[in-house]
C-alpha cells in the first residue's frame, strides 16, 4: 500500500512538464503592450507616432540609463536576498568627488585649485573607488554584524547623503573638463548601461560568482554547508553594487556637467522597482539581468509616454506605482502556478 502510494507520487513528480518559456517572456509582453498602447494613444490624441522617432527612443533610454546601471547592481543584491537603499546617496557622493577631480582650470573657485585639468581617468577611477568603498561598507556591515541589509544600507544612505553635502558645504561643483562631460553626452550613457548589463548578465549566468549568488539567495544555510564562503561573497556583491552606483554617479555628473549633493535622490527606489518589475524576488534566489533591463525600459516607456501625451507628471507617478505592484502580484501568481507545492 505505502509502496504503491510512494511510486504514484514519484510518477506525478516526474510527469510531463509544460513547455518552458523564458521567465522574461511575460514582462517583455508588458513592455511591448505598453509601447503599443502609447503608439495607439499617440495617433488618436497627438496625431504622431510614439515609437517611430529616433530622438524620442534615444531620450527614452537615456533618461533611465542611470537607473539601469544602478539596477544591474541592485538586482544582484536582491538575488542574494538583500536590498540596497544606499545607491541614490552613493550616486551623490560619487558625483561630488568625481566632479571635484574633473574641474577644468577655467573654474574660478575649484575645490582643489591645484588639481584641475586632470586626465579623465582620475575622476573616473576616484568615483568608482568611492562607490566600491560604500558598497564594501554595506557588505561588511551585513556580513559581519548580521544586521538586516535594509537597516545597514539605510544607515549608509543617510550618512552618504550627509557626506555629499559636507564635501563642499552644499556648494555645487561645476566647470568640468570636456573629456569628462563627454561621458554623459549623446548615447554614451546608454552604451555604458547596456555594457554593464551585458557583463553582469554573463557573470550571473556563466561564472561561479553568479552561481554562488543564486545559491546564497535560495538558501544561505545550505550555501554555507556546501562550502560557499557566504560572508565574503556577500561583501563582494555589495561592493559590486556600490561600484555600479558609483559609475551611475559619474554618468549623472557628466550629463549635468556638474556635481550636486542632491543628485540621485530616490534613484535607489527606481532601481529596486526596475529589478522587481523585471522578476527579481525580494525573498532571494530569483532574478535576471535581462529582466531588469526590460524593467528599466518599462520605467522609461512610461515616463516618455506620459510626456509624449502631455499628461501631468502626477499621473505618471501614480501609474508607475501601480505597475510596480501589479508586476509583483503577477509574478507571485506565476510562481504559485508553476512551483506547485513550493
Amino acid at each position, binding site marked *: 500500500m505505502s509502496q504503491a*502510494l510512494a511510486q504514484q507520487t514519484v510518477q506525478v*513528480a516526474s510527469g510531463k512538464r509544460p513547455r518552458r518559456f523564458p521567465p522574461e517572456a511575460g514582462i517583455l509582453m508588458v513592455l511591448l503592450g505598453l509601447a503599443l498602447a502609447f503608439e495607439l494613444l499617440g495617433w488618436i490624441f497627438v496625431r504622431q507616432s510614439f515609437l517611430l522617432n529616433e530622438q524620442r527612443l534615444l531620450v527614452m533610454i537615456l533618461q533611465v540609463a542611470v537607473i539601469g546601471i544602478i539596477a544591474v547592481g541592485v538586482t544582484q543584491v536582491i538575488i542574494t536576498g538583500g536590498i540596497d537603499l544606499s545607491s541614490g546617496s552613493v550616486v551623490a557622493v560619487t558625483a561630488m568627488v568625481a566632479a571635484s577631480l574633473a574641474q577644468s582650470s577655467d573654474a574660478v573657485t575649484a575645490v582643489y585649485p591645484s588639481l584641475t585639468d586632470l586626465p579623465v581617468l582620475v575622476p573616473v577611477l576616484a568615483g568608482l573607488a568611492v562607490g566600491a568603498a560604500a558598497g564594501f561598507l554595506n557588505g561588511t556591515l551585513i556580513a559581519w554584524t548580521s544586521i538586516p541589509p535594509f537597516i545597514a544600507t539605510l544607515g549608509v544612505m543617510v550618512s552618504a547623503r550627509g557626506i555629499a553635502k559636507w564635501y563642499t558645504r552644499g556648494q555645487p561643483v561645476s566647470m568640468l573638463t570636456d573629456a569628462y562631460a563627454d561621458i554623459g553626452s549623446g548615447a554614451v550613457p546608454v552604451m555604458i548601461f547596456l555594457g554593464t548589463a551585458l557583463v553582469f548578465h554573463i557573470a550571473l549566468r*556563466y561564472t561561479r560568482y553568479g552561481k554562488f549568488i543564486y545559491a546564497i539567495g535560495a538558501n544561505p544555510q545550505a550555501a554555507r554547508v*556546501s562550502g560557499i564562503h557566504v560572508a565574503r561573497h556577500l561583501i563582494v556583491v555589495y561592493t559590486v553594487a556600490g561600484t555600479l552606483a558609483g559609475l551611475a554617479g559619474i554618468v549623472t555628473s557628466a550629463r549635468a556637467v556638474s556635481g550636486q549633493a542632491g543628485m540621485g535622490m530616490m534613484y535607489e527606489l527606481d532601481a529596486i522597482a526596475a529589478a522587481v518589475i523585471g522578476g527579481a524576488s525580494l525573498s532571494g*534566489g530569483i532574478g535576471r539581468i535581462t529582466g531588469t533591463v526590460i524593467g528599466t525600459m518599462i520605467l522609461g516607456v512610461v515616463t516618455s509616454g506620459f510626456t509624449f501625451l502631455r499628461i501631468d507628471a502626477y499621473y505618471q507617478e501614480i501609474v508607475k506605482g501601480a505597475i510596480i505592484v501589479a508586476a509583483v502580484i503577477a509574478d507571485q501568481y506565476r510562481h504559485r502556478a508553476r512551483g506547485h*507545492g513550493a
Partner: protein
Amino acid sequence: MRALITEPPDVCLLGVRNVSKVFPGVVALHDVSLRLERGTVHALVGENGAGKSTLMKIIAGIYTPDAGELRLQGRTLRLSSPRQALHNGIAMIHQELNLMPFMSVAENIWIRREPVNAFGLISHRELRRRTRALLERLRIDIDPEAEVRALPIAARQMIEIAKALSHESKLLIMDEPTSALTERDADHLFAVIRDLKAQGTGVFYITHRMDELFEIADEVSVLRDGRYVGTDSPRNLTRDELIRMMVGRELSRIFPSEPARPGPVVLSARQLTLDQQFRDVSFDLHAGEILGIAGLVGSGRSQLASALFGLTPASCGRVWIEGCEVKVDSPRAAMARGMAFVTEDRKETGCFLGLSVLENLEISVLNRDFVRFGFVRARAVTQACAAMSRLLGVKTPDLHERIDNLSGGNQQKVLLGRWLLTGPKILILDEPTRGVDVAAKAEIHQLIARLVAQGAAVLMISSELPEILGMSHRIMVMHEGRVTGILEREQADQVKIMELAAR
C-alpha cells in the same frame, strides 16, 4: 488487537477511527484507531517518525486526515483549523514553544480574548486578575506582568500549559512537555496533570522518556511506521516489552550486507566537547566502515556532526584525519580534508529550493573543479551532473527541473549526489533517509554500501533503529550529549541500543 476497540460500549472522550494521512512521498499514518477516556492520561510512544506528532496534529486541527474520522464524545468532529479545535475544547501544547517573547505572561495567555472595558479598550486589571486566578489554580508561581523572554524555559512551558487550559479544554495534547524541564519542574508538571485528571480532562501525552510514562500514564499506545501497534496499561507492561513493541519491526527489508573490511583509521576524535551540546566524545572511524550513531532527538548527535564538519566547531577536543591533527573550523576546511555532510533537514540546510536540479548538484564541486578563470565549464559540469543523476537514479524529467518538484527521496538523492561529486573520503550522513519512501530508501542504502565497499568512511546518524542495525559495522549510542556505548554489529540489537539511548 485492533478488533477490541471497534465498537465502544460507552462513549469515550475522543475516538480516533481508521485515520490515515499521506504526505508527498510518505504515508505518515495508516488506518490508526485509538480512544481517549475522560480523566485519563494516554501516552503515545514510538520511534521518531512513527506518526505520533502527525496524529496529534490531526486531533488539534492542524492537519486534516485523508481518511477516517474523529469522534468527540460520540459526535463526529470535523476540524479545519486549530481554532476550531480550541472551540471544541481541544488544545495542543507544542514541542517548540509558541510564545511572543516581548509580551507579558498575561498578554500571551489571553491573546485575541482580552477582556475589554466599557470603552472597548483592553482592561489590564481584569487581565491581571484572570491570569492570577488561572495560575493559582495550576499552582504556578509566575508574575502575570513578567515579559516572557525574561523567564526560564520551564516557566514558559508552564505558561503554554496555562494558555491551553485557559480555553477550558477538556482534551489536552502534550508533545514531549518535559524535554526542556528539570526533574523538579517535571514533578510539578505531573502534579498539575494529576489535578487535571481529577477534573475530568483527558490528556494525550507524547514522550520518549520511558520512566515518566510509567509514572503518569494510565494507558499507553504504540505507533510504528505510521501504524497502530497496540494499547495497554503501563502496569501490564515492562520496559523491555514496550521497547520491543516500538521497534519490533522485522529486519526483513534487505540491507546490503557488505563484509566488514575495516581499513586504516581515517578520522579520529578525542574528547570533543561543545557546551550544552555534547561532551567528551571520542571515536575512531575506519576506511570502508559505517559507524552508526544512534540516540534520541536531543542527544547531541546532529550537533556532533555539525561540529566535525566545521559548521559549529567544537570548543575543546582534538581531531585527526588520516593521522594528521586538523582544525576544522569551517565547511570549506572540512571539504578540503575530503569530508562531505548531508544534513538532517533537507529544506532548511540542504536543498536550494527554487533552483534547478543541476544548480543543486553542481554547487559544491564548483569550489574546486569545472571552473576556469571564474567561468563555469558548463558542458563539463552538466555532463558530470547528468552522469551522477543517472548513477543515483534520480527521477526527474531533466536537470533543469526545479528541485521543489521532486519527491523527497529524489531530493535526497540529489543532495547525496552533490557531495559524491566532490569525491569525499569521509561522508557524514545525518538521517539520510528521513521522509523518503521505501523504494528510494533501499536505493540510498545500496548506494551507501557501494561507497563504503569502495573505501569511503561513513558516519551515519539515524533515528531508525533498523536502519542503524542493518547498515552499520559499529554503532555509537549517545544520550544527552555523551557517548553511552559503542557496540559491535554482532552484539548490537534494538533493545540494547534503546537501553543505552533512553537510560
